[in-house]
């Protein structure tokens, strides 16, 4: 009897119930998708050479090669922190003053005319390195010596020098340990100093240096695994010392073929290393990185390429994010990057992104309430749970 009476009602309510649960699920998905909240809008590079003395010329050449590559592909000096522990170019033992080469054919002068070194000589210490990463400087430190990144930054961190099992030697007098590095990266993540971080290490037993990392959004590659040495590539008999390391040499061989408009992926870079040529195994860890490597262009880290969005309407500045009455004409490509956005706009562009997936008015009001808690999926799940409870009680009360 009750069964008979219930069926016609339940045949009326399922459509409403289905709509409510569908809305809630869609909302939950959007909430889950918004865990990486900010858009990628700038690139930084921190290039560190930790070795001193003339016979470590190749480490300087490694770092300067990366500096040249990164500048050539678009990152300006203002967003590069270059730390060189000794002066090779104007070293009295250098028979080519103001010139640093990474090949014995001397075709490329890595030092160039416009090099800007931010930390030089005795300033390259573990303390300064960790201060650069975490941003905890004394107030007198100038802006050119700070990494002023935000939650939309991709940072490339390249370290070279002498290293070993879970450590990297700084200037022959102190060491950076893998747990220190992991701690600094964790602090960076807490303070939203990066969106994605690529760590590249060219030392002996390099892969052990990032073995303690646990922060999400970090990708790391080392030139050799535990127990293996990294070797130099060749000796320049004119200069008298080895001029480049194998891992960096093959990295450069990959990048010299590229220009700013190439879309070679990180996967092609990482798989281009041949262990027999390197004489070590280049090991990378991507367990903390969520994007598949074949979709990430190398210019996301090594260059500074921004895509531009064409709009037919006039540029109305920040109002465009809220003004749903005049939507942007390129509606299908909201994953593209915006040019010249500042810190406050990633949240607004996030609002736009979610507005595409769910009806406008309701989510906008809700998200306005939740301003500031942008990755708070617990709240989203809680709301979803409440909604489900509501639906259940409605169904039960029928």
């Amino acid at each position, binding site marked *: 009897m009750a069964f008979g009476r219930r069926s016609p009602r339940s045949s009326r309510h399922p459509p409403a119930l289905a709509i409510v649960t569908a809305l809630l699920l869609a909302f939950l998905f959007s909430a889950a998708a918004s865990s990486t909240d900010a858009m990628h809008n700038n690139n930084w590079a921190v290039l560190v050479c930790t070795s001193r003395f003339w016979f470590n010329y190749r480490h300087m050449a490694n770092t300067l090669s990366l500096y040249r590559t990164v500048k050539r592909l678009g990152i300006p000096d203002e967003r590069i922190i270059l730390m060189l522990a000794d002066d090779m*170019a104007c070293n009295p033992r250098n028979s080519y003053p103001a*010139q640093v080469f990474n090949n014995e054919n001397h075709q490329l002068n890595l*030092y*160039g005319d416009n090099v800007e070194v931010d930390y*030089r000589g005795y300033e390259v210490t573990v303390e300064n390195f960790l201060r650069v990463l975490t941003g905890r400087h004394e107030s007198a430190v100038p802006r050119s010596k700070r990494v002023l990144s935000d939650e939309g930054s991709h940072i490339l961190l390249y370290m070279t020098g002498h290293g070993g099992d879970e450590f990297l030697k700084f*200037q022959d007098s102190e060491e950076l340990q893998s747990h220190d590095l992991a701690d600094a990266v964790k602090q960076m993540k807490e303070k939203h100093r990066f969106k994605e971080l690529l760590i590249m290490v060219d030392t002996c037993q390099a892969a052990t240096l990032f073995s303690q990392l646990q922060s999400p959004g970090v990708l790391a590659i080392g030139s050799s695994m535990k127990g293996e040495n990294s070797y130099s590539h060749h000796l320049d008999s004119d200069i008298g010392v080895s001029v480049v390391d194998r891992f960096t040499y093959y990295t450069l061989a990959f990048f010299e073929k590229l220009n700013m408009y190439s879309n070679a992926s990180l996967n092609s870079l990482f798989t281009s290393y041949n262990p027999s040529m390197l004489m070590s195994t280049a090991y990378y860890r991507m367990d903390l990185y969520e994007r598949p490597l074949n979709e990430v262009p190398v210019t996301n880290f090594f260059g500074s390429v921004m895509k531009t969005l064409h709009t037919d309407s006039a540029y109305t500045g920040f109002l465009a994010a809220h003004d749903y009455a005049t939507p942007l004409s390129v509606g299908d490509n909201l994953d593209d990057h915006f040019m010249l956005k500042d810190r406050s706009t990633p949240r607004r562009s996030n609002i736009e992104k979610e507005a595409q997936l769910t009806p406008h008015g309701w989510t906008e009001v809700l998200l306005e309430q939740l301003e500031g808690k942008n990755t708070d999926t617990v709240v989203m799940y809680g709301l979803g749970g409440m909604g489900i409870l509501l639906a259940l009680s409605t169904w039960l009360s029928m």
Partner: protein
Amino acid sequence: MAAHSRGHPAMRERGFSPAGTSPYWWIRPCAGSILFLSLLFLFLFTAAAASAAAPEEEKFTEELLLRPLPDRKALAYFHFRSSAPPAASVGRHHHLFPKAISQLVKKYHISELELSFTQGRWNYEQWGGFDPMSTNNAKPPGVELWGFKLNEGNLRYGALPREAVCTENLTPWLKLLPYRDKAGIASLLYRPSIYKGYYHSQKLKLRSSQSLGIILDQTLTVVLQPNTVSGEQLHSNHGQLQPNWSMRHLFNRKLSGKCLVSKSSRVFIEVDKGIVDNVNKSGSDLSWSNEFFVLSNSPDKLIKGQNHVEIQSSFLYVYDASNYTEEKPLDVGITWKLPLVWTCTPSPFHASRFLMGSGNERGSIALSFMSTNLHKQISGSPTDCSIKAVIFQVVPWYVKVYYHSLEIFIDGSRKTVSEVVDKIHVIPSEDKLLPGTLEMLLRFPCSMQSGTLTLDFDRGFLHIDEYPPDANQGFDIPSALVSFPEFSSARSYPEIDPVLGSPLLENFQEDSVVKSYTEVLLVPLTTPDFSMPYNVITFTCTVLALYFGSLLNALRRRIGEEERELKKTVVILKKWQLLASILYRKFVDELF
């Protein structure tokens, strides 16, 4: 209502009636012309005022001076001046003057600042010590800073003797110029040839006052070996010709025109007193093509220079870079025809400094003066004259100088301090806080051939964290500055037009005393065994581990347990013995 639709009748009357109908028709054209004339006068007045206040705008000039040196090298001196008028007239907007500098001046109320980055040592014996170039541009190796603040009489001084100077120091210096190194004279700066030189020094000099505004002088002094293709050139008289060089040999490029925002852009070739005297002695004149040398281009102007006693001391050939373009670049150079040997005027005494003593506990700093007999050249040889010298020395705190141990030797014989020293001012050092400063005014007899001052010091201890990574290299004592206040190195150019407006020559005309810097001293301090902290930790932990291990072992053991263990083993042993004896008896019984 009809009135509204057609407009108010009174208004229509007072409206714009055509000219001629109103009784005051002549006022309007008169008023109009008066207005027009007044506007015209106002315009002219402001234009005149603007042109009269033409100095009230930012200016930039660039100049280059090239000079052959007696030891087959060449000196290149780049001079860039930016000036900003006083702040009240121009506000905060700058279009040529670097904003960073004006902000620095305003924030710290700087009245004078000089910052130099130098690599190499100025060779006073060969390159001179008496002319404005060596006085103003010979700087100690490393970084040196002199500063004065407005309304304060204190001098601020700092020196970093071991700072390496390379391209990365030149980059921000060039960024202060309006065109950086993309156009004008700064485009000649080929980095490998600058840093291959024997001496290079980049300097920034800032002067600011309420009336003059801010004047920023950026200079780069380089001593180069010109890379001429021809090697040794022998002349028929078995002398050796000086190397021929041009701008292309020095900088690998030519000057293709001036910087468009610069007020003037000039290249000077200077031949100094030694050459001038030689040429005059042989009877020829100093035209740009004479029997000793010939210049590659004909100069736009010739200027004679005199020193402070009105003797001709240099000759300048001036080239205006605005006459040259990209298609017809300027590549001025000098070709020698006859061998010529000359010397540059030295300062009255050659000052040098060295360390004495051995061991890691104490030592002595010695400052020696060798006479160059300059006073004989200048003022004859009076019997009772003396030369004043001022010594300024800063010594870091870990070299603890005992100022009471000052000893002075003149020509080998010891003199009392009060005979030679007129004034002495000491700021003693404070451990880890302040370096020690010494300033002395000495009076040397003119006839002195060599004089020496010695000061004893103790070497201090540093904390293990204060040692640099390459601690065994040693620590540096910055250069001492020796100046001779009675000798002026200023030049005068009586024949030039003051409107020539050359800041380089203005600087040379400024009154400045003869100065020279001594060498930087390297003091090896005792270095600790840096592995000792690790050793101590290892040993201590081993000892503690052994102690606690055995202690715990001993504490864990129970007395009765041992005896019971012992009994058990004894019982087991007895059983085995019994078994063994039974078997033995059986075996023996069987045998017998």
